[in-house]
Protein backbone atom coordinates (compact mmCIF):
# COMPACT_ATOMS: atom_id res chain seq x y z
CA UNK A 1 0.00 0.00 0.00
CA UNK A 2 2.85 2.39 0.91
CA UNK A 3 4.61 1.56 -2.37
CA UNK A 4 1.39 2.36 -4.18
CA UNK A 5 1.29 5.89 -2.84
CA UNK A 6 4.99 6.41 -3.54
CA UNK A 7 4.30 5.41 -7.14
CA UNK A 8 1.38 7.78 -7.30
CA UNK A 9 3.29 10.76 -5.95
CA UNK A 10 6.49 10.30 -7.92
CA UNK A 11 5.19 9.35 -11.35
CA UNK A 12 1.50 9.75 -11.82
CA UNK A 13 0.75 13.09 -10.25
CA UNK A 14 2.34 15.13 -13.09
CA UNK A 15 0.23 13.22 -15.62
CA UNK A 16 -2.88 13.72 -13.50
CA UNK A 17 -2.14 17.43 -13.20
CA UNK A 18 -1.78 17.64 -16.95
CA UNK A 19 -5.17 15.96 -17.29
CA UNK A 20 -6.74 18.37 -14.78
CA UNK A 21 -5.37 21.38 -16.63
CA UNK A 22 -6.78 20.00 -19.86
CA UNK A 23 -10.24 19.70 -18.29
CA UNK A 24 -10.11 23.19 -16.84
CA UNK A 25 -9.13 24.67 -20.19
CA UNK A 26 -11.63 22.68 -22.21
CA UNK A 27 -14.56 23.12 -19.90
CA UNK A 28 -14.62 26.91 -20.18
CA UNK A 29 -16.67 26.44 -17.10
CA UNK A 30 -20.14 27.77 -16.74
CA UNK A 31 -21.94 27.73 -13.43
CA UNK A 32 -25.36 27.84 -14.99
CA UNK A 33 -27.27 24.80 -16.11
CA UNK A 34 -30.11 26.69 -17.78
CA UNK A 35 -33.74 25.67 -17.95
CA UNK A 36 -36.33 25.96 -15.21
CA UNK A 37 -40.08 26.41 -15.09
CA UNK A 38 -41.18 29.35 -17.25
CA UNK A 39 -43.13 31.85 -15.07
CA UNK A 40 -43.21 34.87 -17.36
CA UNK A 41 -42.69 34.71 -21.08
CA UNK A 42 -42.30 37.76 -23.30
CA UNK A 43 -44.10 40.02 -20.81
CA UNK A 44 -44.01 43.77 -21.39
CA UNK A 45 -42.34 45.71 -18.55
CA UNK A 46 -41.82 49.36 -19.51
CA UNK A 47 -39.51 49.41 -22.54
CA UNK A 48 -38.46 45.79 -21.92
CA UNK A 49 -39.75 42.30 -22.64
CA UNK A 50 -39.13 39.97 -19.68
CA UNK A 51 -38.75 36.20 -19.43
CA UNK A 52 -38.54 34.59 -15.98
CA UNK A 53 -37.81 30.98 -14.98
CA UNK A 54 -37.76 29.39 -11.53
CA UNK A 55 -35.95 26.29 -10.30
CA UNK A 56 -35.92 23.79 -8.70
CA UNK A 57 -39.46 22.62 -9.24
CA UNK A 58 -41.25 23.07 -6.87
CA UNK A 59 -39.82 25.55 -4.39
CA UNK A 60 -40.02 24.21 -0.85
CA UNK A 61 -39.89 26.04 2.48
CA UNK A 62 -36.30 26.07 3.69
CA UNK A 63 -34.98 24.89 0.31
CA UNK A 64 -33.17 26.65 -2.51
CA UNK A 65 -35.13 29.09 -4.69
CA UNK A 66 -33.45 30.15 -7.94
CA UNK A 67 -34.76 32.79 -10.33
CA UNK A 68 -33.41 33.41 -13.84
CA UNK A 69 -34.44 36.54 -15.76
CA UNK A 70 -33.89 37.39 -19.42
CA UNK A 71 -34.19 41.10 -20.16
CA UNK A 72 -34.80 41.90 -23.82
CA UNK A 73 -36.17 44.68 -25.94
CA UNK A 74 -37.34 44.97 -29.54
CA UNK A 75 -35.28 46.89 -32.09
CA UNK A 76 -36.75 48.99 -34.90
CA UNK A 77 -37.03 45.90 -37.13
CA UNK A 78 -38.98 44.00 -34.43
CA UNK A 79 -36.04 41.70 -33.62
CA UNK A 80 -35.53 40.63 -29.99
CA UNK A 81 -32.24 41.97 -28.61
CA UNK A 82 -30.72 41.31 -25.16
CA UNK A 83 -30.32 44.14 -22.63
CA UNK A 84 -26.96 43.68 -20.95
CA UNK A 85 -26.67 46.90 -18.91
CA UNK A 86 -29.68 46.34 -16.66
CA UNK A 87 -29.88 46.42 -12.88
CA UNK A 88 -32.26 43.62 -12.02
CA UNK A 89 -33.83 43.28 -8.56
CA UNK A 90 -35.97 40.28 -7.59
CA UNK A 91 -38.36 40.87 -4.73
CA UNK A 92 -40.03 37.94 -2.94
CA UNK A 93 -42.64 38.49 -0.23
CA UNK A 94 -45.18 36.19 1.45
CA UNK A 95 -48.67 37.06 0.14
CA UNK A 96 -50.14 39.87 2.24
CA UNK A 97 -46.87 40.63 4.04
CA UNK A 98 -44.89 43.01 1.81
CA UNK A 99 -42.93 44.24 4.85
CA UNK A 100 -41.21 40.81 4.98
CA UNK A 101 -39.93 41.04 1.41
CA UNK A 102 -36.55 39.58 0.47
CA UNK A 103 -34.78 41.62 -2.21
CA UNK A 104 -32.14 39.96 -4.41
CA UNK A 105 -29.79 41.89 -6.64
CA UNK A 106 -29.62 39.56 -9.66
CA UNK A 107 -26.21 39.08 -11.28
CA UNK A 108 -25.41 38.31 -14.94
CA UNK A 109 -25.38 34.56 -15.58
CA UNK A 110 -21.79 33.35 -16.03
CA UNK A 111 -21.20 31.52 -19.28
CA UNK A 112 -24.57 32.47 -20.76
CA UNK A 113 -25.33 35.03 -23.43
CA UNK A 114 -25.93 38.72 -22.68
CA UNK A 115 -29.22 39.71 -21.11
CA UNK A 116 -29.51 36.84 -18.61
CA UNK A 117 -29.53 37.50 -14.85
CA UNK A 118 -30.00 35.23 -11.84
CA UNK A 119 -30.48 35.26 -8.08
CA UNK A 120 -30.70 32.65 -5.30
CA UNK A 121 -32.38 32.62 -1.94
CA UNK A 122 -34.17 30.36 0.50
CA UNK A 123 -37.80 30.93 1.49
CA UNK A 124 -38.72 30.52 5.13
CA UNK A 125 -42.36 29.44 4.84
CA UNK A 126 -44.73 27.61 2.53
CA UNK A 127 -47.82 29.14 0.90
CA UNK A 128 -48.26 31.87 -1.70
CA UNK A 129 -45.39 34.27 -2.38
CA UNK A 130 -45.47 37.38 -4.56
CA UNK A 131 -42.44 37.52 -6.80
CA UNK A 132 -41.69 40.73 -8.68
CA UNK A 133 -38.83 41.55 -11.02
CA UNK A 134 -37.74 45.19 -11.28
CA UNK A 135 -35.49 46.27 -14.13
CA UNK A 136 -33.64 49.55 -14.56
CA UNK A 137 -31.40 50.32 -17.55
CA UNK A 138 -30.46 53.23 -19.80
CA UNK A 139 -33.67 52.67 -21.79
CA UNK A 140 -35.89 53.12 -18.69
CA UNK A 141 -37.46 51.03 -15.95
CA UNK A 142 -40.06 48.30 -15.82
CA UNK A 143 -41.41 45.59 -13.58
CA UNK A 144 -43.49 42.44 -13.77
CA UNK A 145 -44.53 39.82 -11.27
CA UNK A 146 -46.21 36.50 -10.57
CA UNK A 147 -47.43 34.47 -7.60
CA UNK A 148 -45.61 31.27 -6.62
CA UNK A 149 -47.07 28.57 -4.39
CA UNK A 150 -44.21 27.36 -2.16
CA UNK A 151 -44.60 23.78 -0.91
CA UNK A 152 -43.89 22.63 2.67
CA UNK A 153 -40.31 21.51 3.35
CA UNK A 154 -39.44 17.96 2.33
CA UNK A 155 -39.79 15.40 5.11
CA UNK A 156 -37.38 13.01 3.39
CA UNK A 157 -33.65 13.64 3.50
CA UNK A 158 -32.71 12.11 0.15
CA UNK A 159 -29.01 12.71 0.73
CA UNK A 160 -29.15 10.72 3.96
CA UNK A 161 -31.03 7.88 2.26
CA UNK A 162 -28.58 7.84 -0.64
CA UNK A 163 -25.61 7.83 1.74
CA UNK A 164 -27.19 5.01 3.76
CA UNK A 165 -27.91 2.95 0.63
CA UNK A 166 -24.31 3.38 -0.56
CA UNK A 167 -22.98 2.38 2.86
CA UNK A 168 -25.15 -0.78 2.85
CA UNK A 169 -23.96 -1.62 -0.66
CA UNK A 170 -20.33 -1.15 0.40
CA UNK A 171 -20.78 -3.43 3.44
CA UNK A 172 -22.56 -6.11 1.36
CA UNK A 173 -19.81 -5.90 -1.29
CA UNK A 174 -17.09 -6.17 1.37
CA UNK A 175 -18.73 -9.15 3.05
CA UNK A 176 -19.25 -10.82 -0.34
CA UNK A 177 -15.56 -10.36 -1.15
CA UNK A 178 -14.53 -11.81 2.23
CA UNK A 179 -16.81 -14.82 1.75
CA UNK A 180 -15.34 -15.50 -1.68
CA UNK A 181 -11.77 -15.14 -0.37
CA UNK A 182 -12.55 -17.54 2.49
CA UNK A 183 -14.09 -20.03 0.06
CA UNK A 184 -11.06 -19.76 -2.23
CA UNK A 185 -8.71 -20.34 0.74
CA UNK A 186 -10.72 -23.38 1.86
CA UNK A 187 -10.60 -24.91 -1.63
CA UNK A 188 -6.85 -24.29 -1.86
CA UNK A 189 -6.24 -25.95 1.55
CA UNK A 190 -8.46 -28.89 0.57
CA UNK A 191 -6.46 -29.37 -2.64
CA UNK A 192 -3.14 -29.19 -0.75
CA UNK A 193 -4.31 -31.74 1.82
Amino acid at each position, binding site marked *: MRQYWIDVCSRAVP*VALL*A*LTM*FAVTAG*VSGAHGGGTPQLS*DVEAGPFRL*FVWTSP*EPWRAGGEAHVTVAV*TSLDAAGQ*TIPVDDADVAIELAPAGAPERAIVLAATPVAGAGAGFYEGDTSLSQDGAWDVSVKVAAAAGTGDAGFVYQVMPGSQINWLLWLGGALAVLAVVGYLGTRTKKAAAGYTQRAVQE
Partner: protein
Amino acid sequence: MRWEILIPLLILGSIYAIGWVRLRRQSRRQKVATRWRMVAYYTGLASLALALMSPIDWLGSQLLIMHMVQHKILVMVSAPLIWLGNPFPVAMWGIPRPARNGVTLALAGDSLVRRGLTLISQPAICWLVFTFIYLGWHDAGPYDLALRVEWVHNLEHITFFLGAMLFWWPVVNGAPRLHKSLPYWGRILYVLAFVPPNAIAGFAIANSPDVIYTYYNSVPRLFGMTALEDQMIGGAIMWVWSSEMMIDVVVIMLGVMFYREKKHKARQAVSAHTHPVHHAGHVEVAG
Protein backbone atom coordinates in the same frame (compact mmCIF):
# COMPACT_ATOMS: atom_id res chain seq x y z
CA MET B 1 -18.73 25.65 -11.34
CA ARG B 2 -20.57 22.33 -11.70
CA TRP B 3 -18.64 20.35 -9.11
CA GLU B 4 -20.97 17.35 -9.43
CA ILE B 5 -19.59 16.86 -12.93
CA LEU B 6 -16.05 18.15 -12.51
CA ILE B 7 -15.17 15.98 -9.50
CA PRO B 8 -16.18 12.61 -11.08
CA LEU B 9 -14.33 13.61 -14.26
CA LEU B 10 -11.20 14.47 -12.28
CA ILE B 11 -11.39 11.19 -10.37
CA LEU B 12 -11.85 9.15 -13.56
CA GLY B 13 -9.03 11.06 -15.27
CA SER B 14 -6.67 10.61 -12.34
CA ILE B 15 -7.32 6.87 -11.92
CA TYR B 16 -6.65 6.34 -15.62
CA ALA B 17 -3.47 8.42 -15.45
CA ILE B 18 -2.15 6.41 -12.50
CA GLY B 19 -3.00 3.08 -14.17
CA TRP B 20 -1.50 4.18 -17.48
CA VAL B 21 1.81 5.18 -15.88
CA ARG B 22 1.99 1.98 -13.83
CA LEU B 23 1.37 -0.20 -16.89
CA ARG B 24 3.91 1.72 -18.98
CA ARG B 25 6.50 1.25 -16.27
CA GLN B 26 6.04 -2.49 -16.49
CA SER B 27 6.46 -2.69 -20.26
CA ARG B 28 6.35 -0.29 -23.15
CA ARG B 29 5.51 -3.10 -25.54
CA GLN B 30 2.19 -3.96 -23.96
CA LYS B 31 -0.88 -2.94 -25.95
CA VAL B 32 -3.19 -2.10 -23.06
CA ALA B 33 -1.90 1.37 -22.22
CA THR B 34 -0.76 2.93 -25.47
CA ARG B 35 -0.45 6.62 -26.30
CA TRP B 36 -3.30 6.64 -28.80
CA ARG B 37 -5.60 4.98 -26.28
CA MET B 38 -4.72 7.60 -23.67
CA VAL B 39 -5.45 10.38 -26.17
CA ALA B 40 -8.80 8.76 -27.01
CA TYR B 41 -9.75 8.43 -23.34
CA TYR B 42 -8.90 12.00 -22.37
CA THR B 43 -10.52 13.39 -25.49
CA GLY B 44 -13.63 11.46 -24.47
CA LEU B 45 -13.56 12.93 -20.96
CA ALA B 46 -12.85 16.41 -22.32
CA SER B 47 -15.82 16.10 -24.68
CA LEU B 48 -17.99 15.18 -21.68
CA ALA B 49 -16.78 18.32 -19.91
CA LEU B 50 -17.45 20.33 -23.05
CA ALA B 51 -20.99 19.01 -23.36
CA LEU B 52 -21.96 19.39 -19.69
CA MET B 53 -19.96 22.35 -18.42
CA SER B 54 -19.41 24.74 -21.30
CA PRO B 55 -21.91 27.33 -22.61
CA ILE B 56 -23.31 24.50 -24.78
CA ASP B 57 -25.14 23.33 -21.66
CA TRP B 58 -26.66 26.74 -20.97
CA LEU B 59 -27.52 27.39 -24.61
CA GLY B 60 -29.29 24.02 -24.74
CA SER B 61 -32.04 25.55 -22.62
CA GLN B 62 -32.47 28.37 -25.16
CA LEU B 63 -31.98 26.57 -28.48
CA LEU B 64 -32.99 23.06 -29.54
CA ILE B 65 -30.01 23.07 -31.91
CA MET B 66 -27.56 23.36 -29.01
CA HIS B 67 -29.42 20.77 -26.97
CA MET B 68 -29.15 18.33 -29.90
CA VAL B 69 -25.44 19.13 -30.26
CA GLN B 70 -25.00 18.44 -26.54
CA HIS B 71 -26.75 15.07 -26.82
CA LYS B 72 -24.79 14.10 -29.92
CA ILE B 73 -21.50 14.84 -28.15
CA LEU B 74 -22.55 12.66 -25.21
CA VAL B 75 -23.68 9.65 -27.25
CA MET B 76 -21.71 9.84 -30.49
CA VAL B 77 -18.37 11.29 -29.35
CA SER B 78 -17.72 10.83 -25.61
CA ALA B 79 -18.93 7.23 -25.24
CA PRO B 80 -17.01 5.64 -28.16
CA LEU B 81 -13.85 7.63 -27.39
CA ILE B 82 -13.88 6.54 -23.76
CA TRP B 83 -14.27 2.89 -24.85
CA LEU B 84 -11.38 3.28 -27.27
CA GLY B 85 -9.23 4.32 -24.32
CA ASN B 86 -9.59 0.75 -22.97
CA PRO B 87 -10.59 2.15 -19.56
CA PHE B 88 -11.29 -1.04 -17.63
CA PRO B 89 -7.86 -2.72 -17.56
CA VAL B 90 -6.03 0.61 -17.30
CA ALA B 91 -8.20 1.84 -14.42
CA MET B 92 -7.74 -1.50 -12.66
CA TRP B 93 -4.05 -0.63 -12.38
CA GLY B 94 -4.91 2.83 -11.15
CA ILE B 95 -6.82 1.75 -8.06
CA PRO B 96 -5.26 0.37 -4.83
CA ARG B 97 -4.63 -3.36 -4.65
CA PRO B 98 -7.52 -4.17 -2.23
CA ALA B 99 -9.98 -2.41 -4.52
CA ARG B 100 -8.50 -4.20 -7.53
CA ASN B 101 -8.90 -7.55 -5.78
CA GLY B 102 -12.47 -6.63 -4.92
CA VAL B 103 -13.34 -5.82 -8.54
CA THR B 104 -11.62 -9.01 -9.75
CA LEU B 105 -13.55 -11.12 -7.27
CA ALA B 106 -16.82 -9.38 -8.17
CA LEU B 107 -16.29 -10.28 -11.84
CA ALA B 108 -14.85 -13.74 -11.30
CA GLY B 109 -16.59 -17.06 -11.87
CA ASP B 110 -20.33 -17.08 -11.60
CA SER B 111 -20.77 -13.96 -9.44
CA LEU B 112 -23.99 -11.99 -9.42
CA VAL B 113 -22.23 -8.92 -10.87
CA ARG B 114 -20.78 -10.93 -13.72
CA ARG B 115 -24.10 -12.60 -14.48
CA GLY B 116 -25.86 -9.24 -14.46
CA LEU B 117 -23.27 -7.62 -16.71
CA THR B 118 -23.26 -10.61 -19.04
CA LEU B 119 -27.02 -10.34 -19.36
CA ILE B 120 -27.20 -6.62 -20.09
CA SER B 121 -24.15 -6.57 -22.36
CA GLN B 122 -25.63 -8.91 -24.96
CA PRO B 123 -25.46 -6.96 -28.24
CA ALA B 124 -29.22 -7.16 -28.88
CA ILE B 125 -29.98 -5.83 -25.40
CA CYS B 126 -27.35 -3.07 -25.69
CA TRP B 127 -28.91 -1.95 -28.97
CA LEU B 128 -32.49 -2.10 -27.71
CA VAL B 129 -31.76 -0.31 -24.41
CA PHE B 130 -29.93 2.55 -26.10
CA THR B 131 -32.48 2.95 -28.90
CA PHE B 132 -35.32 2.97 -26.36
CA ILE B 133 -33.58 5.58 -24.18
CA TYR B 134 -32.59 7.69 -27.17
CA LEU B 135 -36.01 7.75 -28.80
CA GLY B 136 -37.91 7.86 -25.50
CA TRP B 137 -36.25 11.07 -24.34
CA HIS B 138 -37.07 12.72 -27.68
CA ASP B 139 -40.78 12.42 -26.97
CA ALA B 140 -42.19 15.89 -26.27
CA GLY B 141 -43.30 15.13 -22.69
CA PRO B 142 -40.01 13.90 -21.20
CA TYR B 143 -38.00 16.38 -23.28
CA ASP B 144 -39.94 19.42 -22.06
CA LEU B 145 -39.93 18.07 -18.51
CA ALA B 146 -36.14 17.73 -18.61
CA LEU B 147 -35.85 21.39 -19.62
CA ARG B 148 -38.06 22.48 -16.73
CA VAL B 149 -36.79 20.25 -13.92
CA GLU B 150 -33.07 20.06 -13.27
CA TRP B 151 -32.88 16.56 -11.80
CA VAL B 152 -34.83 15.18 -14.77
CA HIS B 153 -32.38 16.97 -17.06
CA ASN B 154 -29.46 15.36 -15.21
CA LEU B 155 -31.20 11.97 -15.40
CA GLU B 156 -31.66 12.46 -19.16
CA HIS B 157 -27.94 13.10 -19.63
CA ILE B 158 -26.87 10.23 -17.37
CA THR B 159 -29.15 7.73 -19.13
CA PHE B 160 -28.06 9.01 -22.55
CA PHE B 161 -24.41 8.53 -21.65
CA LEU B 162 -24.79 5.14 -19.93
CA GLY B 163 -27.06 3.91 -22.73
CA ALA B 164 -24.47 5.03 -25.27
CA MET B 165 -21.72 3.23 -23.34
CA LEU B 166 -23.82 0.06 -23.61
CA PHE B 167 -24.46 0.66 -27.32
CA TRP B 168 -20.78 1.13 -28.17
CA TRP B 169 -19.52 -1.73 -25.97
CA PRO B 170 -19.93 -4.54 -28.59
CA VAL B 171 -18.83 -2.22 -31.41
CA VAL B 172 -15.52 -1.30 -29.79
CA ASN B 173 -15.32 -4.73 -28.14
CA GLY B 174 -14.07 -3.14 -24.93
CA ALA B 175 -12.99 -4.98 -21.79
CA PRO B 176 -14.33 -6.68 -19.75
CA ARG B 177 -15.26 -8.98 -22.64
CA LEU B 178 -18.09 -11.10 -21.36
CA HIS B 179 -19.26 -12.42 -24.72
CA LYS B 180 -17.68 -13.80 -27.85
CA SER B 181 -16.61 -10.81 -29.98
CA LEU B 182 -19.07 -9.82 -32.68
CA PRO B 183 -17.57 -10.43 -36.14
CA TYR B 184 -16.93 -7.23 -38.09
CA TRP B 185 -19.86 -7.83 -40.43
CA GLY B 186 -22.03 -8.24 -37.33
CA ARG B 187 -20.83 -4.91 -35.95
CA ILE B 188 -21.56 -3.28 -39.30
CA LEU B 189 -25.14 -4.58 -39.24
CA TYR B 190 -25.45 -3.54 -35.59
CA VAL B 191 -24.60 0.11 -36.24
CA LEU B 192 -26.49 0.26 -39.55
CA ALA B 193 -29.62 -0.99 -37.76
CA PHE B 194 -29.59 2.24 -35.74
CA VAL B 195 -29.79 4.45 -38.85
CA PRO B 196 -33.51 3.93 -39.73
CA PRO B 197 -35.03 4.68 -36.28
CA ASN B 198 -32.74 7.67 -35.83
CA ALA B 199 -33.42 8.99 -39.33
CA ILE B 200 -37.19 8.60 -38.93
CA ALA B 201 -37.17 10.46 -35.59
CA GLY B 202 -34.88 13.23 -36.89
CA PHE B 203 -36.89 13.58 -40.10
CA ALA B 204 -40.18 13.76 -38.16
CA ILE B 205 -38.82 16.49 -35.84
CA ALA B 206 -37.29 18.48 -38.71
CA ASN B 207 -40.47 18.36 -40.79
CA SER B 208 -43.07 18.91 -38.10
CA PRO B 209 -45.37 21.84 -38.98
CA ASP B 210 -45.75 22.66 -35.24
CA VAL B 211 -43.31 23.29 -32.44
CA ILE B 212 -43.01 19.88 -30.73
CA TYR B 213 -40.93 20.97 -27.74
CA THR B 214 -43.16 23.80 -26.52
CA TYR B 215 -40.68 24.86 -23.84
CA TYR B 216 -38.79 26.66 -26.61
CA ASN B 217 -41.84 28.85 -27.21
CA SER B 218 -41.22 30.38 -23.78
CA VAL B 219 -37.63 31.53 -24.35
CA PRO B 220 -36.48 34.77 -25.99
CA ARG B 221 -35.59 34.29 -29.64
CA LEU B 222 -32.20 36.01 -29.42
CA PHE B 223 -30.52 34.27 -32.31
CA GLY B 224 -32.66 35.52 -35.15
CA MET B 225 -34.64 32.34 -35.70
CA THR B 226 -38.10 31.22 -34.71
CA ALA B 227 -38.78 28.17 -32.52
CA LEU B 228 -39.90 26.29 -35.64
CA GLU B 229 -36.72 27.11 -37.59
CA ASP B 230 -34.68 26.08 -34.56
CA GLN B 231 -36.58 22.79 -34.45
CA MET B 232 -36.06 22.18 -38.16
CA ILE B 233 -32.28 22.52 -37.86
CA GLY B 234 -32.22 20.57 -34.55
CA GLY B 235 -34.07 17.65 -36.18
CA ALA B 236 -31.68 17.73 -39.13
CA ILE B 237 -28.70 17.61 -36.75
CA MET B 238 -30.19 14.57 -35.03
CA TRP B 239 -30.85 12.87 -38.34
CA VAL B 240 -27.61 13.69 -40.17
CA TRP B 241 -25.01 13.59 -37.36
CA SER B 242 -25.95 10.15 -36.02
CA SER B 243 -26.43 8.61 -39.47
CA GLU B 244 -23.12 10.05 -40.64
CA MET B 245 -21.40 8.73 -37.51
CA MET B 246 -22.76 5.23 -38.15
CA ILE B 247 -21.58 5.34 -41.76
CA ASP B 248 -18.13 6.45 -40.55
CA VAL B 249 -18.04 3.45 -38.24
CA VAL B 250 -19.01 1.13 -41.13
CA VAL B 251 -16.19 2.58 -43.27
CA ILE B 252 -13.69 2.09 -40.41
CA MET B 253 -14.90 -1.49 -39.87
CA LEU B 254 -14.55 -2.26 -43.58
CA GLY B 255 -11.06 -0.77 -43.52
CA VAL B 256 -10.09 -2.95 -40.54
CA MET B 257 -11.57 -6.03 -42.26
CA PHE B 258 -9.59 -5.45 -45.45
CA TYR B 259 -6.42 -4.69 -43.49
CA ARG B 260 -6.76 -7.92 -41.49
CA GLU B 261 -7.51 -9.91 -44.63
CA LYS B 262 -4.44 -8.46 -46.33
CA LYS B 263 -2.28 -9.24 -43.31
CA HIS B 264 -3.65 -12.77 -43.17
CA LYS B 265 -2.85 -13.36 -46.85
CA ALA B 266 0.65 -11.94 -46.41
CA ARG B 267 1.23 -14.29 -43.47
CA GLN B 268 0.00 -17.23 -45.55
CA ALA B 269 2.33 -16.26 -48.39
CA VAL B 270 5.31 -16.07 -45.99
CA SER B 271 4.33 -19.41 -44.49
CA ALA B 272 4.09 -21.03 -47.94
CA HIS B 273 7.49 -19.60 -48.87
CA THR B 274 9.14 -20.79 -45.60
CA HIS B 275 7.67 -24.33 -45.60
CA PRO B 276 7.37 -25.38 -49.29
CA VAL B 277 7.92 -29.10 -48.53
CA HIS B 278 5.02 -29.23 -46.14
CA HIS B 279 2.74 -27.66 -48.72
CA ALA B 280 3.97 -29.97 -51.48
CA GLY B 281 3.22 -32.93 -49.24
CA HIS B 282 -0.20 -31.57 -48.57
CA VAL B 283 -0.91 -31.33 -52.27
CA GLU B 284 0.21 -34.93 -52.80
CA VAL B 285 -2.06 -36.17 -50.07
CA ALA B 286 -4.93 -34.18 -51.47
CA GLY B 287 -4.31 -35.55 -54.92
